[in-house]
């Protein structure tokens, strides 16, 4: 082995002997990315990862000023926004990057779904991805409460109350999440712990598995491209694909800077547990389709409370996504699985229409 290694200087040899740099080099050299007409969608996983990196960095910076208690949280964010140099920028980037990350994640998830990249042997890659999606929503939900403002307070009340409607274990889960029977300072402290310690640890484990699987199996070629046959074209990951990836990251960063500078994150009014829910209360946009569905459900459906039907429906939807690779046997055989394509398109249309209605339908009607 050392005989084939080119002479790279003393630092390289020193590190090579201790770390084994040439193993990484070989890994990077061998990684290939297929070239076909759908390869545009390959960029969204990496973009999600990049935005997650932005979240970690800005999140750590926010930690230096944030105080996780009902008495101080709002004031500490106010201080950060008004007094700390570039505090508004760090917080705005964190808020916008969260939104863009979820957006990139939606695109990544649904493009993988429609291109059937979940088929054998990538079932675990898919399931870990769905789990990461769930964890990301958890990040969004817990992070939303931390500034302790009016909107976040009621969004959290509603969101946690929804867990309470789950049959049998609901009330227990609700108390576990809220740290008591109501949304109080105890909830804030708990959400803080979940947001900055528990979820990051969970992400590291699942993301590690996800990325390992992606490396192990390489990029999936869509069945449609596979069926056409013909010569397989590829490009090396390093540097060809990586450089293209970085163009995407830079674009994301540019959009992020633009949004953060033009539309900085707002703080609103401090949460008051004894004020009525404000008119126009809404959750983050990625929960909007669920929120809007709950508005339309009547109070009783077939003798069951409407919200329970809704919650069970979304629970089953999540479960469906998780086990999708095992339901779609046709995609596994490489034949057309148009049923699951249409289900995927149906879900996308449902989410978009309900989100649109959530922002346009009159809240007081």
């Amino acid at each position, binding site marked *: 082995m050392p005989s084939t290694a080119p002479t790279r200087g003393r630092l390289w040899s020193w590190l090579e002997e201790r770390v084994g740099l040439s193993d990484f080099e070989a890994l990077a050299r061998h990684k290939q990315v297929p070239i076909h007409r759908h390869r545009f969608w390959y960029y969204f996983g990496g973009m999600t990862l990049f935005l997650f990196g932005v979240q970690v960095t800005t999140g750590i910076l926010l930690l230096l000023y944030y105080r996780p208690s009902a008495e101080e949280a709002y004031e500490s964010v106010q201080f950060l926004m008004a007094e700390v140099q570039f505090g508004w920028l760090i917080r705005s980037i964190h808020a916008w990057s969260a939104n863009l990350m979820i957006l990139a994640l939606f695109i990544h998830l649904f493009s993988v779904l429609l291109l059937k990249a979940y088929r054998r042997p990538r079932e675990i890659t898919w399931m870990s991805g769905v789990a990461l999606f769930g964890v990301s929503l958890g990040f969004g939900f817990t992070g939303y409460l931390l500034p302790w403002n009016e909107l976040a307070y009621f969004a959290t009340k509603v969101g946690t109350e929804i867990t309470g409607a789950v049959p049998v274990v609901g009330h227990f889960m609700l108390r*576990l999440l809220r740290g008591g029977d109501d949304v109080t300072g105890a909830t804030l402290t708990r959400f803080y712990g979940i947001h900055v310690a528990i979820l990051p640890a969970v992400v590291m484990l699942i993301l590690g598995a996800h990325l390992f699987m992606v490396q192990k199996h390489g990029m999936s070629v869509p069945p449609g491209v596979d069926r056409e046959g013909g010569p397989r074209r590829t490009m090396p990951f390093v540097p060809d694909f990586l450089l293209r990836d970085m163009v995407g990251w830079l674009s994301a960063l540019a959009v992020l800077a633009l949004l953060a500078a033009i539309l900085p994150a707002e703080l609103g009014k401090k949460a008051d547990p004894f004020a009525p*829910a404000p008119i126009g*209360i809404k959750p983050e946009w990625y929960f909007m389709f669920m929120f809007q569905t709950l508005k339309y459900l009547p109070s009783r459906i077939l003798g069951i409370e409407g*919200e329970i039907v809704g919650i069970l429906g979304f629970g089953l939807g999540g479960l469906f996504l998780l086990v999708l690779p095992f339901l779609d046997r046709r995609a596994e055989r490489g034949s057309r699985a148009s049923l699951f394509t249409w289900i995927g398109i149906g879900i996308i249309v449902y989410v978009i229409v309900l989100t649109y209605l959530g922002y346009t339908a009159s809240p007081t009607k």
Partner: protein
Amino acid sequence: MESTMEPVPTRRSFVNWLLGTSAGAFVLSVLYPISRYLVPPPAGESSAASVVVPVKADEIKPNTGQIFKFGSKPAILVRTAAGELRAFTAVCTHLNCTVQYRPDLGEIWCACHNGHFDLNGHNVSGPPPRPLDPYVVNVRGTQIVVSKGV
């Protein structure tokens, strides 16, 4: 091992059993306290059976509503257009938001999911599944005392 043969207890299998059960017991002894720790202790349920609303009776105009604290939960006091005072829990029966009085409709309304209640607390439209719990309102001079029903 063939099914006809009885497994012979060996020193090795005994040690494995011992190791396995100790490992299991260790995991349980770690998980049990953690799981109990995560469940918050029960909060003492507010025993207040009645409260004095921190607003004088003559300050509440007809066709308005006012949120006040009833123990640890919000409650709503409404003076109807006819001048009658009524009080209910302000916690929406749908998903726990705090309701408010809508003078334009003469109804109690929840902004979260557009739930409507009439001035008897009945859920008249939208997603709320149950009526709001009513309270008893007594006026003593200018003082308003709201208490739980009997």
